[in-house]
């Protein structure tokens, strides 16, 4: 599959696969962290991990295809991640002021 469209100078499939594996592992680790950790900040960091997993995949693919698109994409992803981080911190601070806790489980007034 991956051979399709591969430039002869690009990252060969055999080398690409470990990158993708790492990327997938990062994504899953992030996911598991998101699901299991109660602390909002850590949860946010886990989403960052997932973003960066995607970034890693993009870079690997970019190298594979020998295009600049992947790297460009990663730059933008980083920007967005930064923006989200800013928002996340602002929100977390706001919430902490209210409840004096960073536990995600403190917020379940709305349900049903």
């Amino acid at each position, binding site marked *: *599959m*991956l051979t*399709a*469209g591969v430039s002869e100078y690009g990252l060969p499939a055999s080398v690409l696969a470990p990158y*993708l594996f790492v*990327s997938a592992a990062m*994504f899953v680790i*992030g*996911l598991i962290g*998101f699901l299991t950790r109660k602390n*909002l900040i850590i*949860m*946010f960091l886990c*989403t960052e991990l*997932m*973003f960066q*997993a*995607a*970034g890693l*995949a*993009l870079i*690997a*693919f*970019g190298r*594979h*295809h020998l*295009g600049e*698109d*992947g790297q*460009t*994409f990663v730059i*933008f*992803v980083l920007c*967005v991640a930064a*923006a*989200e981080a800013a*928002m*996340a911190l602002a*929100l977390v601070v*706001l*919430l902490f002021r*209210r*409840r004096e806790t960073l536990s*995600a489980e403190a*917020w*379940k*007034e*709305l*349900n*049903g």
Partner: protein
Amino acid sequence: MSEKLALIWPEFLLFMTTCVVMLTGQWPNASVRRLTPWLCAIGLIAAGGASMMAPPGDGLFPGLMGYSKLLTAGIGLMMLPLLVGTVDRKVERLAAEGVPFQPIRSNGAEFYAFFLFSLTGLMLVSSADDLIWLFLALELTSLPTYIMVTISTQGTRSQEAGIKYFFLGALGAAIFLYGFALLYGAAGSTDIPEIAAHFQANGVGSIGLLGILISLVGVAFKVAAVPMHFYTPDVYQGAASPVSAMLAFVPKAAGFLAIFMIAGVAGWGEDGRLPAEVDALLWIMAALTMTVGNVLALLQSSVKRMMAYSSVAHSGYMLVGVLAGPGIAGADAPFWQNGLAAVLFYLLCYGVMNLGVFGVLASLERRGEEADEIDDIRGLCKTVPHLGWVMVICSLSLLGFPPLLGFIGKIGLFTAGVSSNNIPLVLILGLNSAIAAFYYLRLVGAVYFEPASDTGFRASPYGSRHFASLLSAAGVILLLFVGNGLIKSADNASRPDSPTSEAAPPETDYRAGDDLHAGHG
């Protein structure tokens, strides 16, 4: 590059307005501050005007931009009066009492600015022809809404809603980002038409397929489709009604446009169907979404929550249209085969009629608190007749009661579903409309038949909110008379690029007759 800029004139105009609004929103002079919504309106009108003159884009759906942007501007314009008075009440009251205005305490500037940002994002989604662009546009649509939800009221509920929305949104974004990465990996390009062409030429492949599936479920978060729907009721209920009204439209529209593109990448084949896996995914998602949304809505006593679930259900209806695709005949498919056109038209209908219900809730107040429970709106037709009637009309329209706008919208989905041979799904859609009738009828019954309950809710002093509600009800009825043009433009907007093209298409002019683009020369 510069010719591409021509495509985003509306966004640019909105962005300019946003900048101005950021300033006026916290101007020390109250009368200038009061101008803010008006400035927003001007910006939206300008953006709308510009979108009419926009040239066809070079994405998968060249005509999509014009319609979507105009739709965005139009619905945004309708929402604007509803947003008035959502934030800064205390600040403004104090200011009116002579306390010096403290910009740091005011949220007005951000609120309007974020509203416009979000709309800008939505417009950008419609003009996206690149995965990066799409990703950024989607994020631009969503990020401001996280803040808007959080600041929409002073209570903890908004903050709870905000935190849930933000975190789950981030999770969703991560998922579709990963999907995008896979897509890029499979096709070697981020340019959407190129990816589509690549897939068409070489087959989708397993990585590509995985990318499409993951992107779709990720974007499904935006439209609140099952299983990404969990946040919806909490967020809608926690946010102030005007913001909920916006959430029910803006991210949903963005999500559907993105779904169009991703599904378009997979391509509706010769037989008009998506690749089997994608088809199955959307089929199951559509069926589950409408069913889960409706059955949960049945159990609610909070109108906002009910409307949130109904919003989930409506996404399910629209997914039927996505499944149907642009029709077997491709660019020549008539409207009744064109599921995408049906979705675009239904988005319009939904945006208009949904606004009314939230508008009514926003127009009822008890010491600054908005109505939420169904008890709060009992007997509204007697106490505040105009709001009561808005509620009746919009509920019936949401229910799909003929001949109101919702029914016309649903007919399009029905015909598209039937033409794409998704008859079981159409039956599920029909039965779900019937389930929906249970709770919409409860709304109608509560406002029209039941005696007023004295829960202390009075008509809101913000006349603009009443205006927005009435506008919505009027739209439900009056748009029926111009439905012809609207359907035609939705139809044109959803015409895919020539399905057999190998690469990015040249600019075509086959939409010359499009009335939305009448001014384009």
